[in-house]
């Protein structure tokens, strides 16, 4: 079920909202848990079973950690396992069980085929004519990368003493399966939302802002991301093309992925607000960044902070000298790339960003871009980000190389290249491309826009929602890009 679909908008959401506000306090959390499973199982009921298994293990691990801490409840609530409690070997084992279960599920569904293919490729390199390992093709459950990271944060936060464990199973299920952020984030860390699982405030202002977020997210997805996706899909589906068409397709993809993902995040934040939850900001006008370092402070914030807190800092962060810092940055970005998908293209994408982070850290204040007008920094950063998107978007390494060749006019262009270009040049797409550029570089983002909901802004938000709904009916259901991760 996709947020921007008929069934979600006109059946699922009205039913959930009506039931939510009709039920008393604690039952609401249970309702969210149940409806989240319906939402997730709608695409494939067996995926809900997989998620339930993982969640159950994490929940039990939390209870075991609590029991092993031997701490009493405080005012009827489970205690935080503070630094005064010695982390025993058994507690470490419980934490490891949770992490291994989550990573195991992720690896089994996402990486086994990739590993097998690479072993076989290595075998072929050394002369093996047969497959060393059978390549199993397993259908990847939607959103598994997101909810496993979320689930891992539970055991880690409880173990670290950053949050209290949950005693009620429904509370935990609500956290883990929370449908607004389930399949494409933001990746909510447990410590950040633990208390909201128990107590939330519901106000008209909060609900209205939720509506505003949801409407703007819907507008981003339907009115901008999908048309940009048409251009990008057509460009990337073709073979070698003229350099101007290649740039048009690539920048359209950069626009698409931003509007698609930030649109989803806005809708998630909006839905959460309607249910009384406050989620974190996931995008902060990332294409306005003047460096790659800044870009990662503004793009997919929930992932970059997750990686920072659960990977980069435990690896030593920047505390162990410059070389170790560069290595840690690269390791985090390579793993971040691999998190997006089991393919060398994602690893290269991560490598480009890791390399740039290292270079920028090395240059520091001596970075030549710092001496130039801000617009130059923004343009240069956008260029690097766009070039890295080639690897992110192309289906294969060969396609990425061909596309890069087209970008720099190095590809042999056949008359067929014009044919594909004919499909994305109508004035509608060109016009929306220009509008997308204005929205990205010249307008405030959703968080800024909804902070003050004046009457004109309210009218703008309402018109966006109405227009998006009308256009939605002419579009084939188009899942969000990040569903595949």
């Amino acid at each position, binding site marked *: 079920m996709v947020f921007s679909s008929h069934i979600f908008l006109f059946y699922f959401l009205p039913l959930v909202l009506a039931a939510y506000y009709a039920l008393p306090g604690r039952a609401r959390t249970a309702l969210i848990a149940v409806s989240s499973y319906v939402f997730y199982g709608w695409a494939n009921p067996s995926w809900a079973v997989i998620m339930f298994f993982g969640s159950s293990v994490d929940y039990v691990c939390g209870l075991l950690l609590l029991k092993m801490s031997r701490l009493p409840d405080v005012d009827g609530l489970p205690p935080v396992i503070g630094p005064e409690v010695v982390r025993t070997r058994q507690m470490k084992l419980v934490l490891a069980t949770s992490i291994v279960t989550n990573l195991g599920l992720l690896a089994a569904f996402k990486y086994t085929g990739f590993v097998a293919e690479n072993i076989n490729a290595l075998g072929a390199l050394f002369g093996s004519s047969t497959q060393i390992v059978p390549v199993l093709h397993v259908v990847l459950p939607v959103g598994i990368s997101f909810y496993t990271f979320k689930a891992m944060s539970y055991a880690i936060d409880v173990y670290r003493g950053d949050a209290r464990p949950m005693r009620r199973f429904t509370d935990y299920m609500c956290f883990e399966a929370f449908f607004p952020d389930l399949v494409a984030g933001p990746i909510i860390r447990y410590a950040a939302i633990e208390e909201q699982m128990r107590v939330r405030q519901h106000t008209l202002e909060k609900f209205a802002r939720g509506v505003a977020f949801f409407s703007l997210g819907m507008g981003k997805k339907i009115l901008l991301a999908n048309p940009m996706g048409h251009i990008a899909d057509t460009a990337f589906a073709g073979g070698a093309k003229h350099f101007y068409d290649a740039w048009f397709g690539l920048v359209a993809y950069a626009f698409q992925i931003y509007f698609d993902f930030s649109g989803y995040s806005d809708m998630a934040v909006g839905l959460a607000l309607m249910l009384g939850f406050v989620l974190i900001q996931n995008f902060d006008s990332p294409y306005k960044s003047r460096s790659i370092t800044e870009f990662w402070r503004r793009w997919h914030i929930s992932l970059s902070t997750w990686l920072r807190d659960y990977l980069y800092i435990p690896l030593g962060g920047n505390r162990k000298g410059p070389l170790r810092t560069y290595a840690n940055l690269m390791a985090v970005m390579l793993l971040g790339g691999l998190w997006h998908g089991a393919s060398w293209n994602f690893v290269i994408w991560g490598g480009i960003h890791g390399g740039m982070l290292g270079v920028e850290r090395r240059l520091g204040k001596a970075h030549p871009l710092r001496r130039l007008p801000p617009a130059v920094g923004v343009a240069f950063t956008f260029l690097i980000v766009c070039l890295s998107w080639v690897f992110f978007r192309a289906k294969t390494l060969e396609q990425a190389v061909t596309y890069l060749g087209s970008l720099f006019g190095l590809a042999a262009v056949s008359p*067929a290249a014009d044919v594909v270009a004919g499909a994305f040049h109508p004035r509608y797409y060109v016009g929306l491309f220009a509008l997308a550029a204005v929205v990205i570089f010249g307008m405030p983002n959703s*968080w800024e826009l909804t902070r003050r909901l004046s009457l004109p802004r309210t009218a703008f938000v309402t018109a966006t929602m109405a227009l998006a709904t009308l256009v939605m009916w002419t579009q084939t259901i188009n899942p969000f890009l990040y569903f595949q991760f």
Partner: protein
Amino acid sequence: MQSTLPPSSSAIERSGGPTDPTGDEQLRRGIIATDVSRGAAWLLTLLFLGAIYAVPLAQAYLEKSEGEESPLADLVRRPPTAENLRQLEKGIEDASYVKAWVQPRVQLLLTRLGRVGNKLAVVGHGGWLYYTPGVLHVGGPGFLEPEVLRGRAREALDAGQEPLHPDPRPAIFAFQQALAQRGIRLVVLPMPDKAGIEPGPLLGRDGRVEMAQNVDYDRFLSELRAAGVAVLDARRSVPEPRTEPLFLAQDTHYTPGYMERIAADLGQLVIGLGVLPKLAEKPVMRGVPQQASRVGDLVDMLKLPDDQSLFQAESVVVHQVQDAAGTPWEPDESADVLLLGDSFTNIFTLEGMGWGNASGLAPHLALALGRPLDVIAQNDSGAFATRQALARELKAGQDRLAGKRVVVWEFAARELSVGDWIPLDLPTPESAGAP
């Protein structure tokens, strides 16, 4: 032992948790501090809720007043499998009165003002429409590239579908061999896509625009020929100079004129194989001009309002093939030539397609050959549908290949990029033998 006191509800709004290591407080505060007047908040909320509740309530009311059953009933009637849920979702959307009213009108507006098509149709210039998979086939990567083939097979598996056979060559060679064992020659006719033959209106360029084809197309034809498969390259049937369009402006298919040229060239190729015996009695056939008119199938795919005036019906003159008594041509199962084909075979022949009958590729091939013709034709899935139908008949003991000397296999060239080229066994019934 106690690390923190349980927070009050107001504290919850200020902090993310007992220790809040995430530093998200400020972001949350940003939301709590929304500056919105009571009136604007009510307006936004009520408009939103009004919209999301009005649609299903209006649907329920209209279904009741029309005496229709809601597709939602399937939710309790059928087990909640992934497939059933997908169908239910589609059923709800298809049955929506609001969508049925809004969608065609918005599409018309978008098409009129911005030349916007949809997933299936690309809007060209001057009222021309193109089939999206065809456009992507022509301009797409080489369909024989190993990476492309691997990628397609992998995509199908990743989507949980049956294994896909993306490479057309094994299926064609297997078919050729199975036929050869029965002494039958195979002739292949891939029908180039409209975007390749008539790219001008797609690009908005007046005058002659060079024909285009997928980068692997010529290599594909060469490989077939090298393996002994007779191939008609329909690009050779393009007249020089061109005097009229070769494809229907709003349809995925060719014009009657281009089709008849292809049929004539195909007839020559088949006769040139030298495997057809002289007939004792040559059937008398002639083409009788008739008018056919309708809006093209691509207009249907755009799903515009029934009374739209953006695309007018297109008129063509077809030549209905008749016998001496004026009876429209019919396929003959006892013929020694069998034509397997898709919608390029059915158009102008299958009455349901709305472009006349007995006037398409099959009757005109029969006319060119001067002999009866057997036909198995099915719209779509030309990569396997007709071979599958033939194999099914053979398996059922009906030897459709008995007495055949030539099988002509026509399929849309875009199938080379999107089709499932399943290699199929052709069982040999006991009664069957080489002619």
